[in-house]
């Protein structure tokens, strides 16, 4: 399957002679060396990611790790120093200004951390904005904007101004605006980070609900692991501008590749995040204490077993039996596993 979005050997260095710096970084120069010796800031190095259609790819990292820089390369709000960005197999780097605008209008929409709504326009007009930029006729603009505003729960707020709404509602407008653009790809830069925890949980639910229905290719940025694990199909972990691990979130959780990730995953509630399918083993017996769905969380299984650690369950994916899970294995999986590093093997 060809990925919807592919990033190949992407480098970004901030400074006047960024291209000349690429070979130095390829030769192993670190971020701080580059800054001391050349006065350039290393933004991203050797980024390779495939983002599949209809999946949510989450890019996670601490502040300053280059998340915003990376997502802004996809629609070329930032120009790379080296590398390729392929959207539907087409290299975005080769596009002229007009073609680039066309791609931004038709293929990618964006949701921003600080909402970035037009303060002098009503909610309705804000949601119409992408369509009016595309030159869609007025009647369709109005009906599409109304439809998406209703879909994100903003019925009856069409004539308000953004400043009259709460943060959560403003971000709903931001999402409605992105959805109204009717693009395959949706870029979300810390879209929920400015919201209160409760509203944030609501919005994550809304996103998952919309995603189940619309099957967009979502690129979602966050610095919050809980959020990442809740919504990610594919998780990319960024540190100092480099990818240190990427893959299925469950795999990353069970086998962190790096002490940095380990520290990240150390204090989350693993039972709530890990799924039965990540821990189950091949069928080896035929007497079971019950059956559990492969997509259930371990927490659900513990509840079902009422905390009894001697039981073993049959695992099914809804159609067939796919494996088994012993409560003993479950308990082991709850203990954070140290990353295999040189420090520990020595």
């Amino acid at each position, binding site marked *: 399957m060809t990925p919807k979005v592919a990033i190949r050997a992407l480098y970004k260095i901030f400074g006047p002679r960024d291209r000349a710096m690429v070979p130095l970084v390829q030769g192993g120069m670190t971020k701080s060396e580059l800054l001391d010796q050349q006065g350039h800031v290393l933004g991203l190095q050797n980024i390779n990611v495939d983002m599949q259609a209809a999946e949510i790819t989450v890019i996670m990292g601490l502040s300053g790790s280059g998340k915003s820089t990376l997502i802004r390369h996809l*629609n070329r*709000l930032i120009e790379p120093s080296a590398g390729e960005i392929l959207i539907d197999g087409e290299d975005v780097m080769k596009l002229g200004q007009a073609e*680039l*605008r*066309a*791609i*931004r*209008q*038709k293929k*990618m*929409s*964006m949701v*921003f951390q*600080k*909402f*970035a*709504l*037009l*303060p*002098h326009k009503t909610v309705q007009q804000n949601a119409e*904005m*992408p369509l009016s*930029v*595309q030159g869609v006729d007025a009647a369709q603009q109005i009906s599409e904007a109304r439809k998406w505003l209703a879909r994100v729960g903003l019925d009856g707020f069409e004539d308000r*101004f953004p*400043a*009259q709404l709460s943060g959560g509602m403003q971000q709903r407008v931001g999402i409605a605006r992105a959805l109204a*653009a009717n693009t395959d790809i949706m*870029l979300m830069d810390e879209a929920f980070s400015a919201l209160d925890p409760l509203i944030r949980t609501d919005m994550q639910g809304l996103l998952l609900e919309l995603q189940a229905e619309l099957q967009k290719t979502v690129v979602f940025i966050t610095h919050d692991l809980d959020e990442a694990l809740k919504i990610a199909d594919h998780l990319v972990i960024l540190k100092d501008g480099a990818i240190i691990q990427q893959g299925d979130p469950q795999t990353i959780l069970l086998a962190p590749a790096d002490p940095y990730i380990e520290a990240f995953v150390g204090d989350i509630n693993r039972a709530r995040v890990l799924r039965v399918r990540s821990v189950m083993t091949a069928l080896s017996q035929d007497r079971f204490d019950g059956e559990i769905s492969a997509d259930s969380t371990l927490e659900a299984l513990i509840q079902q077993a009422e905390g009894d650690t001697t039981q073993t369950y049959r695992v099914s994916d809804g159609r067939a039996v796919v494996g088994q899970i012993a409560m003993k294995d479950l308990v082991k999986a709850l203990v954070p596993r140290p990353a295999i590093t040189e420090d520990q093997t020595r």
Partner: protein
Amino acid sequence: MAGYDGVFDTLGLRDWCDQDKTDAPMSMAQLLAQSGGATEKAPLPFPSLDALHDSCARIAQTRDVTQGLEDGFLSIRPELKLVLDPITQPLSWLLDGALFLFETTPWWLMIPLLVIIAYVVSRSRPVTGFVALVLLFFGLIDHYEVAMQTLAIVFVCTGLSVLLGVPIGIAMSKSDTAQRMIVPILDLLQTLPTFVYLIPLIFLFSVTESKIYGIAVIVYAIVPVIRLTDLGIRLVDQDVVEAANAFGMTPGQKLTRVELPLALPNIMAGVNQTIMMSLAMVVIASMISAPGLGVLVLRGIRSLDLGVGIVAGLGIVLLAVILDRVSKAALARIDTHRNEQ
């Protein structure tokens, strides 16, 4: 003998100095000496052009320099006029037209009209009421006509300042080079004493043409609207500009849909200052034939007619207050509309 002879002698320039020596016109010092009689020459005068000229005839006198400047200016005057006259002619027409309109429209039509405009712009009853009172007061003290003349000039000059200033401000906000080039000019315009503008203008244009004071007012009053347009656009929330880019707006769409609307409060603040500065300059420009309240102030000064001057001065203050109130009310309206919570 003059004090600096020795200097030229030791430098061996005596021959060069005395070549084709004629009886040059007397310098200022010589004239003074002649009329005052016994002014003692200081032992060491400042080596000014005039003092050096006494010792060496080849060095120009100060008045030659000023004369040279004047000659130079006069010699390029026809060319300058050739270029500037056609460009600025519409300004004369506009000013004359506006003055004609304001003077010939009967007061019972003009006052209600101005009050309505004040309401449409400010949407504020107290401000509108105040405007009506002030206009009636002008009528009562027989200053209605001069006030209308001043108002007509302020309207035309402010309008043109905005029309020219906003595009210049946009260009400055888009290009750092343009900004670097224009800012020193704006600084110069703002620091030059207002009288200094008038000097080149009276050389270039005749005082019978209205554009002479129109130019003086516009050149002086355009600065804030340019500065605040530039500033306003540069201060537009970069997140919103980024959103505009991300949704594929063209530079033109970005300007008209995002940057100008978001910069509007700042631009309006600039317009408010431009109005106030036009009013200030119209008064000064009375010296070069601008009609209106300023003429009365000038008459008050010239003939030491205290009453005339004070009443006209008060009129200017009242006009300034209503213009300021109305434009500030418009500004406040934009602001509250956006930040309503």
